[in-house]
């Protein structure tokens, strides 16, 4: 696998899109930290990049790249390689290159300007989000052979987790305000990787606000070491399960 991965990486790292993405993130990082007197505000702006731009780029790039590499995947499958090797070389290649872009574009500036726990969590959750959305992109891509359809599904996934899901939760909370919903907040948070990443950073950043109003259950959970570990595990599940489903589908797929 290492052999193939090496060449997949050679290819993707020279991809103009990945280079552009790295530069864009770098530019944004320096702009946010440079213009804001208060680094806390820079972190908030970067958090939005983390939650909106990073998932979008990850899922679209991964899906597009999958379809563009389709013939190459065919070619590889005629070689003495297992489907697993082919699939995971491609998957890891995309994950590693996007993670590297993220680490250079956001990780380094954060380390430089905001080397705190908040900064660390920002980078960690951003990385996990990258992996999660790449996984979902792969899943979407193996489900359909139609490139336009696959990228469409990827976009819908992003749109759902970024906007629709929160809108649904909001509506649900407001219409069920007569019911006890303390535990529901935790469940709802765990069911959306973007929300999970956001809360893991906010629980450090806006701790005073979150401590106050969400209720004891929420703050006890996300404020405790156990809760943080559960959340991180959940985020990992968010990239492991889709990639596993994608791999299962890919193994039995006609190329």
């Amino acid at each position: 696998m290492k052999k193939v991965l090496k060449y997949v990486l050679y290819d993707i790292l020279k991809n103009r899109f990945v280079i552009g993405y790295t530069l864009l993130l770098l530019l944004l990082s320096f702009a946010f930290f440079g213009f804001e007197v208060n680094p806390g505000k820079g972190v908030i702006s970067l958090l939005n990049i983390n939650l909106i731009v990073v998932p979008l780029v990850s899922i679209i790039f991964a899906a597009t790249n999958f379809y563009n590499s389709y013939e190459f995947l065919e070619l590889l499958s005629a070689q003495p390689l297992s489907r697993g090797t082919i699939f995971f070389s491609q998957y890891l290649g995309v994950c590693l290159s996007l993670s590297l872009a993220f680490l250079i574009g956001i990780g380094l500036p954060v380390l430089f300007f905001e080397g705190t726990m908040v900064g660390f969590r920002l980078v960690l959750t951003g990385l996990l989000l990258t992996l999660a959305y790449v996984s979902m992109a792969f899943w979407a891509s193996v489900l359909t052979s139609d490139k336009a359809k696959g990228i469409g599904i990827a976009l819908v996934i992003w749109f759902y987790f970024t906007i629709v899901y929160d809108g649904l939760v909001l509506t649900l909370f407001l219409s069920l305000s007569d019911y006890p919903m303390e535990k529901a907040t935790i469940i709802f948070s765990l069911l959306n990787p973007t929300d999970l990443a956001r809360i893991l950073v906010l629980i450090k950043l806006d701790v005073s606000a979150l401590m106050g109003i969400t209720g004891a259950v929420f703050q006890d959970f996300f404020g405790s070491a156990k809760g943080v570990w559960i959340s991180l595990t959940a985020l990992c599940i968010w990239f492991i399960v889709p990639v596993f489903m994608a791999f299962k589908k890919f193994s039995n797929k006609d190329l």
Partner: protein
Amino acid sequence: MVAACTPAQKPIEYAKDPCQFCKMTIMEPGFASELVTKKGKVFKFDDLSCMIKYMKIEQTSIEDHAYVLVNMYGSNEFLNVQDAVFLHSESFKSPMRGDVAAFKGIPHHSHLPLETTEEIKPLNWAEIIKLF
């Protein structure tokens, strides 16, 4: 989710939970009280007077709730308000000065922080509501 919606009483976390009405932290077990709505929402109070005032403002009564509970005086054991006997005296010094203590039956005088000469009449829930 279904389980979460079945009304159930919840223990009060002293020094942590706020009173729904006066927003103060609930500290003293002997005076705290709790409302559980039929939909399962729990409201906690640091003083019986807070709960009664809250119920009056919200215009609700016992019938609207799954549980209306009060701590027995000097303990953190809940008692249904309709099963309780109440005593009202300034000597109780309850957190919001409702100064009402709840008991399972009429308590022995010597267990109370009352001035020896003080004589107080036991009250029931209907009578206690009128106090606040």
